[in-house]
Structure formats: C-alpha cells, structure tokens
C-alpha cells in the first residue's frame, strides 16, 4: 500500500510473537537497500557477533514493488557469518510480491526459536510452527514439505535453508521458491543460527490503485519497453550464460581455478549448448514478463533396466562458471547434476564451486591430502565433486567445516592462499581485469552486481585510475537506487533516474520523486556507514597472487594499475561513508 511511512513486521522468534511498527524515513531512504540499512542501524548490534540471537535478519521491499514490471526483488540484510560485517543479498521469485501483498515494507526477524521452526506470515496472520522433523532435510525436499503444510499455492513465497544453513556455513544460501536465491555471504546460516528452517509469506492483501490517468499510462509505457524492445533479449533468449562463450572468446573466463582464461573445451558448457541440449523451459519472478529463469533437465539412469529419473535445475552464467569452468567440468548435463547437488545442500553455488576449485589445486600441489578432502577429486571429475559438495554442506570433518567458512579461512590454516580465488568472497565469473577485480574485492556486496567493473574493463583502453573509480562510485550509486525501489538490475536499461522519478510520482511518492538524486547518495552513504561500523577496512583488502598471473585479451595484468585502483577506490569508499551523503547530480 502507498503510505508515507514504512510498515514493518518485527518478529521475536523466542516468543513466537511479532509487533507492527510504523517508521518514518520514506523520503530519505526510499526502501529496499536504504530501508534495510536503516533497519540494521535500528536493530543491529554492530559490536556483537553475527550469530548473536538478537542480530536481525531483515527483508525489505521498495516503494515501487509490485506497482511496475520487474519491481520484483527483495533485499535481505544481515550480519554475515562470512566476514562478521553488515551485508546484503538480493533475491526474487515471489518473495517481493508476497511481502507487498502481505502489506509489509520490511520484515525483521530477531531472537532464536526454541526448536527448529517455520515462520508463516500474511496480511491476516502470524504463526511460528515447530518443524523439528524437517531439520537435516535437504533443501528441495524441505520445499515440497512446506508446500504441503501451508495453504496458498501461487500467491505465496517459500524461503528455506538446507543442511548448510543448519550447519552455520558461511556459504549457506536461502532458497526462494525453488529456482531463486538469496545466494551470497551466508544468510542461510543466519536462519540456521535462529533455528529457522523456513519462512512462508502469504500475499493475501489487496490495495486500491492510484486514481487518475498517470499511473495506467506509465505502466503501459514501462511494460512496452520491457517486452517490445530488444533490450531484454539477452536475458530471455540464451540468458546470462551467453557470457560463457563471449568471455572465453576474449580470454576472460576464469577456468580451472583461474589457471586459464580460455579453453576450447568451454564449448561444452556454453550458453548455446545449454539452450540447445538441456533447456526444458523458462520461468519468471512474479511481476516480471521477461522470464529470465532458465530451467534445464538431467535424466539419470538409476537401474540397469531402462529406469530413469529426471531433475529440473535452474542455471545461469554464474552457476555454470562456478560448477563448470572453475572445476573444468565441461559437460552441460554433468554441470546440472552438480548444481542440483549444491541446491540440495543449500549452498551458495559460486562460493562452493570456487572453494572446491581451490581444494582441487591444493590437493594437486600436496597442500592438502585425502585425509582432509576424504576424496581424491581432480579437475573435471563431476561425480567426485557431487560427493564433495555433500561433505561441504554437512561439514563432514574439520577440513570441510573450515572450508565452509570461506576459502581464505581454509587457506589460512592449510596454506595455498596465493591461489585462493577470493575477492572479498569467492570470485564471480569474470576475469576481465583490474577494474572488476578491485570492484568485487572492495565492493559493498563483494559481488559482480555492485558495479559494472567487468563492463568497464571491456570498454576502456588505457589505465585510468580516476576515471575507473569515478565510474565505480557513480555506477554503485545508480544501482543502489534501483535496489531501493526494488528493481531487478536487469531492468537498469529502462529504469533511469527520470523514469523512476515519474513512476514514484504516479503512485503518490512526490517528495521521494523530487529528491531522488539526493536520496541515492544518502542510501549509498548509509550502507557504507553500516559496513564500516561492523569492521570493514578497505585498506586491509589484499588481492591473491593468482589474480596477478592472469592474461586476458589485453595481455598481462597490470599490477601497478591494480594497486593504484585499490588505493583510490578504498579512499573513495571511506569518503562516501564519511561525506555529507549528497548526490553530485
């Protein structure tokens, strides 16, 4: 509902009760990323560890959620088990519209449930149910059980964790509606630490729309742009895996624990190969007519007689890079089988794949032995990796327990840090060069989505420290505005500042529409302030040796440029957090 304040449901899991709070701040922090940072400032305990029961797990939507196409994402904010600092992870599915129709701008979950539990909320109910019988159950089976236990098929969102979250892995994700995830930085472990196996959000509210002609006219215009133009073609045709062949072609695809950046064998796991051989169908987040979700199938023979089972597995560029290229698994069906195993454990696929790539090289080099890894896995051995993924999710021994806390933690203990492909967290699927590496290593979410560093690398010709840092700061500011609305970042080509402002005005957020540039700056500052308050020091970030050894289409990596970028971007981040928070628009 359109309102000038935020309506927040704050749940205390220990008591099994919640309160509704009306908070001011719509015109200054908008929603989504901005609201999450504001809520963390209110409820978070920066000096306490991430698993302190009182730390909040926050879900926030924005002022345009549900009102316009592709306003379909939710921001999850928490103190991360990965680095014990403030973090965000974003997810879609039906989570955003479910929260909208449950009539909450934000959900704050505090405390720890006395037994493994599932929280169910809607516009007319709040319920915490004991589900001890689901503890230990894999993530996909958990989803099926919760689906049966609660009513409302189609108009609800089911969030759940797998064994990795229960075992407090810093790589544990929260799965949303089977095919989407709050993937990175370990929010699944935050649910695990709270004894929270699942969250069911029922979207059962109805609101009147703004009167007048502006809103319907603008909706039609935005919808036409999202569906009639070629702008979205790359997302719904081959999808994000189109990047596999592109990056491989310019020697910028991280392969075999980043020992290589190109390999003809990548043809076997290109986006075109996945689409031709494995694509079963597409799916969409609620409120998005683009439908970028690609679901592949794997058929497995499980008996000598002609007895088969089949699995449906969603894929994207990042999962294919992590479970395919980094592990040298070059058969599309094998990659899907591995992704399915990662899904069942409830692991972040990017971190799991990159961590196992490091472990494979460490095993090759004798840094590790099978005493630690339990398996003699080698690059390309998908079957062994499927077993290893299970060990990682289950934290089967001390080695896997440590690896699940992050590749750097394991390398710190066993050695091999120089070939740990970590940029703040396990790297994303771009070896485009200096600007991307610094963007992920220092970026707020340590994500390829913080800013388009990979794109800058591909467009720029000469090293330009000031130009690159200016780009990263401004691109982050533009993206943080989108993630406060909360838009899918795939819509960034349509949702420029002017259209966002028109959209806000058409539904009645006039003040926010007029102050949109200033608000973007305020949110950017607020997020960084929360991050720094929980211990982030950009000066302390180091880039492992492996990144300095790569060669792309531009040739050898420029170490001096990388170092200069790191210093300048680190200073820029400190400047944002300490500055006035005004936009320079």
């Amino acid at each position, binding site marked *: 509902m359109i309102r000038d304040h935020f309506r927040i449901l704050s749940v205390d899991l220990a008591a099994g009760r919640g309160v509704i709070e009306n908070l001011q701040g719509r015109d200054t922090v908008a929603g989504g990323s901005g609201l999450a940072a504001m809520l963390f400032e209110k409820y978070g305990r920066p000096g306490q560890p991430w698993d302190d029961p009182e730390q909040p797990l926050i879900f926030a939507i924005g002022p345009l959620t*549900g009102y316009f196409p592709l306003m379909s994402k939710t921001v999850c904010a928490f103190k991360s088990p990965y680095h014990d600092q403030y973090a965000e992870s974003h997810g879609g599915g039906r989570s955003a519209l479910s929260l909208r129709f449950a009539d909450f701008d934000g959900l704050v979950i505090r405390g720890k449930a006395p037994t493994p539990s599932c929280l169910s909320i809607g516009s*007319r109910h709040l319920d915490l149910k004991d589900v001890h019988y689901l503890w230990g159950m894999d993530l996909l089976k958990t989803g099926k059980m919760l689906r049966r236990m609660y009513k409302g098929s189609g108009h609800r969102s089911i969030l759940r964790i797998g064994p990795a979250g229960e075992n407090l892995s810093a790589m544990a994700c929260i799965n949303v509606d089977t095919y989407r995830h709050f993937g990175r930085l370990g929010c699944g472990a935050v649910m695990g630490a709270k004894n929270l196996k699942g969250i069911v959000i029922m979207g059962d509210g*109805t609101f009147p*729309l703004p009167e007048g002609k502006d809103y319907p006219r603008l909706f039609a215009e935005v919808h036409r742009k999202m569906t009639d133009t070629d702008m979205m073609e790359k997302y719904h045709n081959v999808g994000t895996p189109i990047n596999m062949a592109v990056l491989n072609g310019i020697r910028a695809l991280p392969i075999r624990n980043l020992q290589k950046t190109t390999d003809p064998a990548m043809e076997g796991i290109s986006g075109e190969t996945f689409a031709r051989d494995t694509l079963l169908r597409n799916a*969409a987040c609620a409120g*998005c007519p683009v*439908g970028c*979700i690609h679901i592949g199938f794997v058929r497995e023979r499980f008996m000598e007689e002609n007895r088969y089972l089949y699995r449906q597995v969603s894929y994207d560029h990042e999962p294919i890079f992590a479970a395919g290229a980094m592990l040298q698994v070059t058969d599309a069906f094998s990659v899907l089988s591995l992704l399915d195993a990662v899904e069942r454990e409830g692991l972040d696929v990017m971190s799991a794949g990159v961590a196992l790539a490091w472990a494979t090289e460490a095993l090759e080099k004798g840094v590790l032995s099978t005493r630690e890894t339990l398996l003699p896995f080698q690059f390309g051995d998908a079957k062994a990796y499927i077993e290893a993924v299970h060990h990682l999710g289950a934290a089967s021994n001390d080695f896997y327990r440590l690896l699940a806390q992050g590749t750097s933690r394991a390398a710190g203990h066993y050695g091999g840090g120089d070939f740990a492909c970590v940029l703040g967290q396990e790297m994303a699927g771009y070896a485009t060069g200096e600007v991307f590496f610094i963007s992920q290593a220092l970026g707020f979410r340590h994500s390829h989505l913080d800013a388009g560093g990979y794109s800058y690398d591909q467009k720029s010709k000469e090293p330009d420290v000031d130009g690159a840092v200016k780009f990263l700061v401004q691109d982050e500011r533009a993206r943080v505005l989108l993630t406060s609305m909360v838009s899918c970042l795939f819509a960034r080509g349509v949702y420029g500042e002017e259209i966002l402002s028109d959209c806000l005005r058409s539904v009645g957020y006039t003040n926010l529409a007029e102050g949109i540039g200033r608000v973007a700056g305020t949110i950017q500052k607020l997020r960084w302030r929360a991050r720094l308050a929980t211990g982030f020091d950009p000066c302390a970030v180091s880039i492992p040796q492996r990144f300095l050894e790569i060669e792309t289409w531009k040739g050898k990596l420029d170490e001096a440029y990388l170092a200069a970028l790191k210093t300048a971007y680190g200073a820029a981040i400190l400047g944002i957090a300490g500055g006035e928070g005004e936009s320079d628009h």
Partner: protein
Amino acid sequence: MKILTAPRMERCIGCHSCSLACARLVHKNLSWDTAGIRISSSGGLSTGFEARTCLACQPAPCASACPTGAYSQRKGGGVVVKKSLCIRCGECARACPVDAIYLDPASEPYVCIHCGRCVAFCPHDCLELREVGAESGAAGEVREGAS
C-alpha cells in the same frame, strides 16, 4: 460473443502479468487475488502452472446459485455481474466447480467477465479471447515474435 480461454498454459512462466493486469485494469486494485484469472503452480513450481479462470459454463452453476440476481447467465457462457445486487453470501464461489471465483474477505466475489484485457499482457501468448464455438486459433504452434 467472445470468451477468454487459456489454451496454451504449457507455455506459462508464472509471471502473473495476466492476473495483475486484470486486478489493475478491471478492478482498479493492486492484488494477486481480486482478479478474474489467477495463476498457481500445478503441484509445485517444478510442474508448471495452471490458470484459475471462468470456463464460461452454460448454464453457469454460479448464476443458478446466486440468490439475488447479482450473477445472471451471460450469452455465450459465463456470467454478467451486477455488483449492486450482491449481498456477499459467497454462494457463487461455492457453486463454481473449478474454483474460479475469488471471495475477498473484505468485499465482493471476483470472477472473469471475459473482457480479454489480460490477453495482451501474457508474454508467451498463453491466453486467447475467441468466439464461442470457434477452435483455438494457434494451439500449440509457435507464434513468431512471441518470446
């Protein structure tokens, strides 16, 4: 006389654009529920989607069940709705054999009026407004330009 049909639901991606359009354009609401067409998974997201919408029955059980004349038989199938006559008893929804009528706890029942305004919002051409008695125009065939 035309009726709304959903002949190609195998193509559905679950974006809900149709039901959001119905709620927005016909009923002036932001809602998943107060719409004449509603989408749900047909047994979990791994099994695809189904549309809950009026099948244009003739005679319509909901019209027969309505005690106040708010629902009357529509020529060609389905019902004509006169909201001013509705006493919100819910008999129509209970009479519908395919659960196509949504009873809003705060207001009235919602049913498809076969206006077809949702059709244009489906990115995969799952829906079709067609003449009563006519065969589905493009069942199963790939339409050029559909994504």
